[in-house]
């Protein structure tokens, strides 16, 4: 699927700005971003539920701009599931097939009994519905009404209604956001499995970076109607193109502290020189993005330079590891990710003075506008030194 120059505005408010996106066949692509970034609108334009003001949507090398939603060969799973409350689970899943294969007359009460081919078609539909239901393990629920199901079961029914058509493209609009936390994590795995099994193309919208990171082949991170960065989860995590991307991806969130380039290929935070490669002229203000795992505790007696002095504000126990919230001399907060063993060995209490060692090569350098300082400028520094 291909998007070319998609633009959309409501009144004078621009929602999408000349947006291009190529989705590869069979890929799981996630549109992620804060609420109001235009990701849902984009999905609805792909589905045909909204009409773009500019640009074109192509599915399988063919423009679908003039096609109705039902003729685009796409299926959608809604945040609310949008199941037909008056129909049983089985009929809900069967609806797209009935609409496709039966004429209007064959669907009307009374009139439908006149059709000689209807029983045969309905048998076929029932078999396909049963097969899909078995795949989703909801085959024992086919007679129930949606109102009698739990959130997770409704979710599966909505998936079944999408799957039964065997569409070229699955569109999912925050399908997990109405589930409780535990079920959400579980369904994340199921959706990824389902994608692998079906081999179909998925376009998935979420505001949850964890969902995006765990399921996607590629992520398109959106903000203010534009795609900030498109890449694999590893790309976005390890090489964020901007401070906004770095801050959106990852939990606990990346630390951002102000620093100055020292002109000698490194940076300084206050009086402390950090081993972060940076070739910008001395005194250039920069912002450092430091992942919590790029921070570690240094023993006080090591006597090495380039350590940031801080005070432990709070320690959060995540079971296998700890997140230490430290306050730097300047008042900035810096979170460090520590293994349980390292935390216990350090025997810290809130208020303890600590020294933090920064893993320089893994620090992301941004200019004050939040743009990534190009790798050439960084490696150039390494070469000059």
């Amino acid at each position: 699927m291909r998007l070319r120059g998609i633009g959309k505005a409501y009144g004078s408010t621009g929602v999408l700005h000349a947006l291009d996106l190529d989705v590869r066949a069979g890929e799981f692509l996630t549109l992620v971003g804060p609420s109001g970034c235009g990701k849902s609108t984009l999905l609805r334009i792909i589905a045909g539920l909204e009409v773009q003001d500019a640009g074109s949507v192509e599915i399988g090398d063919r423009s679908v701009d003039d096609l109705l939603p039902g003729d685009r060969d796409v299926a959608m799973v809604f945040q609310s599931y949008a199941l037909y409350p008056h129909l049983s689970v089985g009929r809900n899943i069967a609806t797209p097939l009935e609409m496709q294969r039966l004429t209007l007359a064959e669907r009307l009460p009374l009139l439908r009994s006149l059709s000689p081919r209807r029983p045969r078609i309905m048998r076929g539909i029932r078999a396909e519905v049963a097969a899909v239901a078995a795949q989703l393990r909801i085959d024992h629920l086919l007679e129930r009404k949606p109102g009698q199901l739990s959130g997770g079961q409704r979710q599966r029914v909505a998936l079944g209604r999408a799957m039964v058509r065997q569409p070229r493209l699955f569109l999912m609009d925050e399908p997990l956001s109405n589930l409780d936390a535990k079920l959400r994590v579980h369904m994340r795995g199921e959706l990824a499995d389902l994608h692998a099994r079906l081999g179909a193309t998925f376009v998935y919208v979420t505001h949850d970076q964890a969902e995006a990171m765990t399921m996607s082949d590629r992520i398109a991170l959106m903000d203010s109607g534009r795609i900030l960065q498109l890449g694999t989860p590893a790309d976005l995590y390890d090489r964020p193109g901007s401070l906004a991307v770095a801050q959106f991806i990852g939990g606990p969130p990346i630390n951002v502290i102000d620093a100055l380039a020292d002109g000698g290929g490194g940076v300084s935070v206050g009086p402390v020189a950090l081993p972060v490669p940076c070739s910008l002229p001395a005194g250039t203000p920069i912002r450092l993005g430091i992942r919590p795992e790029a921070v570690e505790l240094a023993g006080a007696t090591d006597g090495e330079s380039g350590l940031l002095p801080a005070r432990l504000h709070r320690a959060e126990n995540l079971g296998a590891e700890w997140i230490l919230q430290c306050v730097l001399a300047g008042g900035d907060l810096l979170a460090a990710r520590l293994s349980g063993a390292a935390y216990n060995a350090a025997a810290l209490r809130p208020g303890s003075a600590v020294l933090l060692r920064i893993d320089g090569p893994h620090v992301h350098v941004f200019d004050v506008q939040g743009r990534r300082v190009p790798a050439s400028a960084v490696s150039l520094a390494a070469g000059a030194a």
Partner: protein
Amino acid sequence: MSAVVPAAARSAGRRAPQSRLEAVAGTAFALPAAILILAVLIVPLMVLAVLSFTDYRLGAVGMKAVGLDNYAALFADGVFRRSLTNTFLYVAIVLPVSVFGALFIAILVQARARTRSFYEVVYFLPVTSTLVAMATVWQFMLHPALGPVGTLSVDLGFGRVDLLNDPDLALLALAAIGVWQVIGFNMVLFMAGLSVIPRDLYEAAALDRAGGAVDRFLTVTWPMLGPTTMFVTITSSITAFKVFDTVVVLTRGGPLGSTETLLYVLYLEGFQYFRIGYAAAMTMVLLAFLVALSVLQAFALDRKVHYQ
């Protein structure tokens, strides 16, 4: 009262006194409503039922039980039987037109963006007006010589038609007025029902290839309006069954008894001829019809309209 019971005794038998106290308090709270229901609904109904087995006449000193005589006379009475037929005919016209017509108008008006509230007010106006007062306007409208309807029918080549004085057409004219009176109310109810249908469902239907007007209606609108339709059908049929004021003001049951309805005949017997016992029997029959209708509709429709 429980405060004076020693702590040990209280803990031993706590369950019983407390639940008894709750039962007493509950009864006390329910009592005013129960008395009210008894006084204004149950007792009058029972008095009515008893009267229907007597020959009581208003102002008479005594009365005597006549068993089922009133009911026997009722079903032998040609006037009553004709009024039954007329009433059913009237309901048979007013009910479908006012329900499906209101649904149709509601869907049309719902789609209007700017003029929506204008149409809502226009269609709702007849509901707010007094039917007796408006009936005089209808009398003028339908007057063969003075009214615009008469002039129109002449212009259209149907000749001079006197709707209210034509035995074949008078009931139809009253039914038209009945529809006019109730359709706005039904429309507002349907619009309320339409406004709570989630937009998601229409979008899901569009993706399921049920995006055309007919499919949208059959897949989403009609089933989702189930509860509204049930309510509208029951209230409209009860209103239609009780047609009275237009009969009194416009036709007085004529011409040739063609617009005599159940309630009008009942009114004549009870308040013009003072045959209270006979009128009570008639009321019981009317009541039986209304109850049967409500129960039937509730059972028939209820099974299909509730989803949760």
